């Protein structure tokens, strides 16, 4: 079975794009992720409870899955594989601040639940009723070859027909790059699935 990239999305702290076309840009003050959520007219109040890592992954998946008629009906055959460098350190740091001082020691349960990076994969899975493999890997730097290999391994599971593969960073930079890799036997999707293609699409997205 052949594999190809059907769609790809990109979000940083001031711009979002889908398949290389800009969808929204930051205007004025305020968090761009909230601006993007509202611009996309999403009705999912849980979004506001998420940490920035989960918001990034959630919005990147919303861009990629919008309009997909099988979005909620193929959960068994979709996997989610994510990567980043900074793990959940942004939330870890915020949680640490709630337990730093003995006289002001109020550990926050809602911050604590996001002190694991793979929660973003869970948030995407809950939203889209995805029941396939979910995984989160740490890399020193974005590594397209490792992403290609891990996604290829996910397809070795006979039930997997599509993978949402993403680089999602929110600690020392804010950026999400997500691809939807699909198996196909008829009409090919947008791009061939290879490490070189992934690098090309990421660079194109970063450069706007």
């Amino acid at each position, binding site marked *: 079975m052949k594999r190809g990239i059907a769609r790809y999305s990109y979000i940083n702290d001031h711009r979002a794009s889908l398949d290389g076309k800009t969808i929204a840009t930051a205007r004025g003050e305020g968090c761009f992720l909230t601006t993007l959520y509202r611009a996309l007219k999403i009705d999912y109040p849980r979004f*506001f409870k998420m940490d920035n890592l989960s918001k990034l992954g959630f919005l990147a998946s919303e861009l990629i899955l919008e309009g997909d008629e099988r979005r909620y009906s193929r959960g068994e055959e979709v996997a989610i594989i994510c990567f980043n460098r900074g793990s959940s350190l942004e939330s870890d740091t915020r949680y640490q601040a709630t337990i730093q001082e003995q006289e002001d020691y109020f550990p926050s349960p*809602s911050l604590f639940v996001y002190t694991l990076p793979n929660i973003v994969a869970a948030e995407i899975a809950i939203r889209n009723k995805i029941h396939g493999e979910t995984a989160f890997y740490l890399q020193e730097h974005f590594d397209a070859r490792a992403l290609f290999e891990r996604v290829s391994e996910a397809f070795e599971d006979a039930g997997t027909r599509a993978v949402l593969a993403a680089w999602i960073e929110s600690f020392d930079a804010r950026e999400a790059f997500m691809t939807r890799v699909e198996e196909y036997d008829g009409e090919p999707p947008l791009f061939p699935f290879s490490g070189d293609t992934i690098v090309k699409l990421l660079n194109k997205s970063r450069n706007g």
Partner: protein
Amino acid sequence: MDELIVNLKKEIIEVLNLEEVKPEDIADDAPLFGEGLGLDSIDALELIVLMEKNYGIKLTDPSQGRELFKSTRVMADYIRENRKK
């Protein structure tokens, strides 16, 4: 207007990140869980932290929350009787 209830609603909105809810959207007797604001178990824990941090009320038995978090009016009445801050 009960000032404590108004402040409590603002605190709940802030601590639970209910960005699209305004204090006036929450009726004094409306249930906070279930069909009310749609809060979950993590929210309940966060409300327990709020009671201790803002009012010095330590709930040692989490099951107390079931009765206490029925509505903002019930919460406010409990705070009035038991607050240490």
